[in-house]
């Protein structure tokens, strides 16, 4: 099992991805927390700032901008998240729809209450600010102010009137003695200071608290002018600088012209200035009213700004709250959706057939447990599938083994169904039956050309077997068949009959197994062995009487020669000659039979075939030969494995046959032609080929097929053993013998016999 090896990198990758995403989540969370904290602090400060306290007032604008910036940042973040979400949705990324839905739900949950509170607060703020400003309050303040003003004016005019009255006392008082009357005036009026000024603003005399001042405060020329034209004037001083805590300086000043008795006299005018302190309580109250009025007016004027400020604060808080809610919604939604996505993704993968290990969450909640259970399930599934796969592999390899064995069996195997339809077959069957059985799979055996009878026989055998099986308890039937020569491509060597031994059995699923083997060669071998035995015995039995027959005949001729009349003498001579000739022929025949039968087993040794042929050819030189023989030897022939003695026999027999054939052709009127013997190194097959070619009459068709069987001959005096011996020797050498007619211009122009020999094996490696 190599599963763990596959798992490790995957698991590592999953782990890394988890780590990365965890880190990212952390950073996002921390950032969000920081941002929220900043927002909260800012919000708090902003809320404080609207409290009208100086410090916050100073920083209000700054805070406001800061808040707007934070809100903008949050908006940006939300926008970024939204864009990401939408792009994921566009791409059809798995789970984005769910995430969007969750985020929307959470955002709505945050947004709606916020909006509600905002609307209520908005109404509340705008109404309550309006309610601060009341016409009645304004009127009361105005009235208080007017009251204060009127009181002050009354006091001033009163002082002015009194001063005028007092001034009349000074009309005739010369400048030099003015001090005493001034004192009197001061006492009458209850004033603080009384001064008498000349028209050129020179101090004539004074009395009161400030008389010892080196340079008493002098009225402005404007005031002098006004006093001259209006005879009297009064004003209030010190109220401008006065604060509720410091009101000592507030006083009324009256400046009146002292009447000049010498009207028309060019005397200069004198002015009386009276200063009287204002009652402190009055001043304090008046100032308080003024201050209150001022503040009220300020706020009334600024209420738009105030409302804007409050509403701005509210709006900003709403924004911060909503943005925070949306952000939290997305993050929390992600948190919740993640295991679901993981799970669903895993399910998709499994559905698609991917059983690689799935990531599991470590959370303690049910979703985490679900992902773990799912990962376990996937692993088990994958294990089970792997087990199935390995057993399947075993089965298929066993099958392949079996198939290989079947394919390489020399025996033919056919599986038939009860109706005789071929279910499967092996190459051996095709070879033996010489029919493309693979092409006939699914069709009946009887439909194969030439096998109708065979099929019928087999069917019968199976029927019999199945009928009798119950009785005899047989496992299989066995029978031998002979297939007729109608088989296509029948070999010349095997005659026209193929002998088969077939064995049938029933397979578990009611199919029928037919196993058969070609035993034609075994049969043929048995036949030739039996024949050899017969020949050997027959030869022995026949040969024994031949010598006495010959001797007797010769003795008859020797004794009777010259003792009988010539006509009888002629008959005698002729008869004896006939007997002797026939006995010779018989002897030779018998010897050949004996040789054939006695042929010893070949002793295979390295032999130079060319040398051997050349040696034999000495016997066929021009002097001895009836028909000339040409050699065409391939010098590149390696040594072959063979028995030199037997090979010599082969060459002799073949040359003899060739010469005989040529002679008979010559006697039939053909042109005499040379016999050719040649050797050839065939590199492609790794064998050496020995061929003998003649231009005789060739083989008739019926002889050609059985040429190698004993006692088959075309020659008048032949025993029919020459080629049989050649065949036997060739078999001993495990060499192939081919015999064919040489066809020239569509006419038989002689025969050709070829043998191919295995070469000497090089040193074993």
């Amino acid at each position, binding site marked *: 099992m190599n599963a763990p090896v596959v798992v490790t990198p995957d698991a590592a990758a999953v782990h890394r991805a988890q780590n990365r995403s965890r880190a990212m989540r952390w950073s996002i969370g921390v950032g969000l927390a920081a941002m929220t904290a900043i927002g909260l602090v800012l919000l708090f400060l902003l809320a404080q700032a609207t409290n009208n306290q100086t410090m916050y007032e100073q920083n209000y604008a700054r805070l406001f901008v800061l808040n707007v910036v934070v809100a903008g940042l949050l908006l940006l973040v939300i926008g970024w998240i939204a864009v990401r979400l939408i792009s994921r949705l566009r791409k059809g990324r798995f789970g984005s729809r769910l995430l969007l839905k969750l985020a929307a739900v959470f955002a709505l949950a945050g947004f709606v209450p916020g909006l509600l509170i905002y609307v209520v607060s908005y109404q509340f703020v705008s109404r309550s600010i309006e309610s601060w400003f009341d016409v009645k309050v304004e009127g009361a303040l105005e009235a208080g102010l007017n009251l204060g003003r009127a009181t002050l004016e009354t006091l001033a005019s009163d002082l002015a009137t009194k001063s005028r009255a007092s001034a009349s006392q000074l009309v005739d008082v010369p400048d030099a003695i003015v001090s005493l009357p001034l004192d009197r005036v001061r006492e009458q009026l209850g004033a603080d200071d009384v001064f008498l000024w000349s028209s050129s603003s020179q101090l004539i005399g004074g009395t009161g608290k400030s008389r010892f001042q080196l340079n008493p405060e002098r009225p402005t020329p404007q005031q002098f002018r006004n006093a001259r034209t209006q005879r009297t004037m009064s004003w209030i001083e010190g109220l401008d600088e006065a604060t509720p805590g410091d009101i000592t300086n507030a006083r009324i000043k009256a400046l009146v012209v002292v009447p000049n008795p010498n009207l028309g006299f060019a005397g200069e005018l004198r002015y009386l200035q009276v200063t009287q302190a204002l009652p402190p309580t009055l001043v304090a109250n008046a100032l308080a009213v003024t201050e209150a009025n001022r503040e009220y*007016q300020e706020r009334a004027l600024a209420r738009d700004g105030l409302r804007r*400020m409050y509403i701005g604060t509210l709006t900003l808080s709403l924004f911060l709250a909503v943005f925070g809610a949306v952000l939290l919604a997305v993050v929390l939604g992600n948190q919740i959706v993640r295991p679901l996505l993981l799970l669903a993704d895993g399910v998709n993968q499994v559905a698609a057939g991917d059983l690689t290990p799935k990531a599991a969450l470590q959370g303690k909640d049910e979703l985490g447990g679900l992902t773990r259970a799912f990962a376990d399930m996937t692993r088990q599934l994958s294990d089970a599938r792997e087990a199935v796969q390995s057993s399947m592999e075993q089965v298929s390899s066993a099958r392949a083994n079996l198939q290989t064995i079947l394919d390489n069996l020399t025996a033919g195997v056919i599986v038939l169904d009860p109706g005789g339809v071929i279910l499967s077959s092996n190459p051996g069957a095709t070879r033996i039956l010489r029919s493309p059985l693979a092409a006939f799979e699914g069709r009946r055996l009887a439909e194969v050309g030439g096998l109708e009878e065979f099929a019928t026989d087999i069917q019968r055998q199976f029927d019999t077997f199945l009928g009798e099986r119950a009785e005899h308890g047989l496992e299989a039937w066995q029978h031998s068949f002979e297939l007729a020569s109608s088989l296509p491509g029948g070999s010349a060597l095997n005659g026209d009959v193929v002998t088969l031994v077939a064995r049938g059995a029933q397979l578990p699923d009611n199919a029928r197994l037919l196993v058969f083997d070609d035993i034609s060669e075994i049969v043929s071998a048995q036949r030739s062995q039996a024949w050899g035995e017969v020949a050997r015995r027959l030869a022995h039995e026949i040969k024994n009487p031949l010598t006495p027959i010959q001797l007797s005949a010769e003795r008859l001729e020797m004794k009777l020669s010259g003792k009988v009349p010539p006509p009888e003498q002629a008959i005698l001579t002729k008869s004896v000659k006939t007997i002797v000739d026939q006995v010779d022929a018989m002897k030779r025949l018998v010897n050949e039979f004996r040789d054939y039968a006695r042929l010893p087993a070949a002793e295979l040794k390295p032999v130079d075939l060319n040398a051997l042929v050349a040696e034999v050819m000495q016997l066929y030189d021009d002097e001895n030969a009836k028909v000339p023989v040409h050699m065409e030897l391939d010098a590149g022939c390696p040594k072959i494995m063979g028995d030199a003695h037997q090979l010599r026999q082969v060459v002799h027999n073949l040359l003899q046959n060739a010469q005989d054939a040529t002679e008979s052709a010559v006697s039939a009127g053909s042109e005499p032609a040379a016999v050719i013997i040649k050797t050839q190194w065939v590199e492609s097959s790794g064998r050496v080929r020995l061929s003998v070619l003649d231009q005789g009459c060739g083989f008739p068709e019926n002889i050609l097929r059985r040429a190698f069987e004993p006692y088959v001959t075309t020659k008048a005096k032949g025993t029919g053993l020459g080629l049989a011996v050649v065949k036997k020797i060739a078999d001993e050498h495990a060499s192939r013998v081919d015999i064919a007619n040489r066809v020239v211009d569509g006419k038989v122009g002689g025969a050709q016999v070829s043998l191919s020999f295995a070469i000497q094996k090089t040193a074993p490696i």
Partner: protein
Amino acid sequence: MALIWACLAAVIPRPVQAESVVAEITQFRAERMVDGVFLSAVVRFDVPPAVEDALLKGVPMFFVTEAELFRDRWYWADKKVVSAQRHVRLAYLPLTRRWRTTVSSGALASSPGMALSQSYESMAEALASLQRLSRWKIADLSEIEPGARHNVELRFRLDVTQLPRPFQIGALGQSDWDISATAFQRLPVEPDK
């Protein structure tokens, strides 16, 4: 959502400056005297109704005059040599129906002691004194280089930042409250005798 945007739009100051009240500086004169550099000028502007209304209700207004003296530098931006400020507080006292100006060289809240106050019977008088600058000494002669060429920049504006805060928020970005004028003058090289 539209409501929120509307609110936001109302709250956030509009960046586009509305047309401001026309104010101009005339008779601007910079003089180099023996005892210093003096400026004289008249600022002309009409008090906008909103400002006048606020004044009559007792809200003081602050006017700031800033003068900056730059020395020419051919190789770099001009160097600021001297900068002087003159703050004027204009207030109406409803109790006595008088107008009052307080002049100081710094922000009035910070240095009340240095202030110089004067009362007027009417707003016109008070404004006239406010609008007239005569022989305002912005620098000693020792503070400027004798031979160098100098420029004087004079700026006059209504200082909204010294108003009460809610007022500012209301006034921010409103053209009624924007009174400002700027003028440049080259300082004569030789002191006038």
